[in-house]
């Protein structure tokens, strides 16, 4: 039996054609949209929400909204960029509706561990190449992002993972650029601590920094 999602993607392998299909309310066009963009956007939603079930809710809401509003899409940015914004906005709206994490939780994350546990980057630490970023490290990174308090997680995901500029991320989150910078430092400190054991397990090559390479 042919299911609606078992479709020939090549029908819409061009964005313009896909858009035409979406505007005509072509039954398969929404499926194509999903096939093309859902995996990456689901990951983004998961990182922002810190919860897979909620991420699916966000994605569902975002895709329905996108299909409903497709006539408003002006093509000034790519379709992927437009969908990306809808997903980010949908996730942030849901997060704003949630109770925010207290400042004490954030402080506890930053200052966890006593002074004796402070440790410089050791020579056993290796650079993660794409090959080394295996499932275990990927899962560790995902879990570490999910454990960040919401106020740090959203900053880290938008700024570092999604590559938004400081100004853009600050605008989207409705905070000042300086507040964003401090939160990003906090997030990075917390993440570094979380993924360090996984990096240390991955061989004995000395750390090569970007600076050393240049």
């Amino acid at each position, binding site marked *: 039996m042919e299911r*609606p*999602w078992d479709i020939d993607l090549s029908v819409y392998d061009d964005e313009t054609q896909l858009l035409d299909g979406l505007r005509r*309310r072509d*039954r398969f066009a*929404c499926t194509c949209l*999903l096939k093309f963009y*859902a*995996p990456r956007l*689901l990951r983004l939603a998961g990182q922002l929400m810190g919860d897979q079930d909620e991420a699916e809710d966000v994605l*569902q809401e975002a*895709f*329905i909204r996108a*299909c*409903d509003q497709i006539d408003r899409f002006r093509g000034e940015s790519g379709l992927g960029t437009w969908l990306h914004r809808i997903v980010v906005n949908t996730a942030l709206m849901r997060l704003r509706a949630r109770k925010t994490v207290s*400042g004490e939780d954030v*402080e506890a994350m*930053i*200052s*966890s*561990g006593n002074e004796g*546990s*402070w*440790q*410089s*980057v050791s020579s056993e*630490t290796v*650079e*993660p*190449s*794409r090959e080394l*970023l295996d499932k275990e*490290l*990927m899962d560790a*990174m995902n879990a570490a992002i999910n454990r960040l308090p919401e*106020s740090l997680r959203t900053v880290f995901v938008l700024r570092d*993972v*999604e*590559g938004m500029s400081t100004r853009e991320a600050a605008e989207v989150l409705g*905070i000042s650029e*300086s*507040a964003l*910078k*401090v*939160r990003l*430092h*906090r997030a*990075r*400190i917390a993440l*570094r*601590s979380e*993924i360090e*054991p*996984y*990096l*240390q*397990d991955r061989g004995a090559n000395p*750390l090569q*920094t*970007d*600076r050393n390479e240049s």
Partner: protein
Amino acid sequence: MSQEKMNTYCQELAELVAACDPDNPNPELLEKIERHVEQCAECQSAESALDRTVRAFREAEPRGVSSQFEQSLVDQLCRNDDRADQA
């Protein structure tokens, strides 16, 4: 694998960051943090390692969407389309 949590940032940075109000940061303190990160070799190494991890993480292929979720969303989008057709 050791599951012991370690903080690989230098203590000076962590203290500066912990002292900085994330909602209303003191500009001088923030400036001090940024300057510290630029000048501290230890922080530079740690930042660089994290940058590379994040870059690889960003470039990694995402996992597929579960077929159950995909089916459910497709059904919903099609229903929405049907409603639009009827309207």
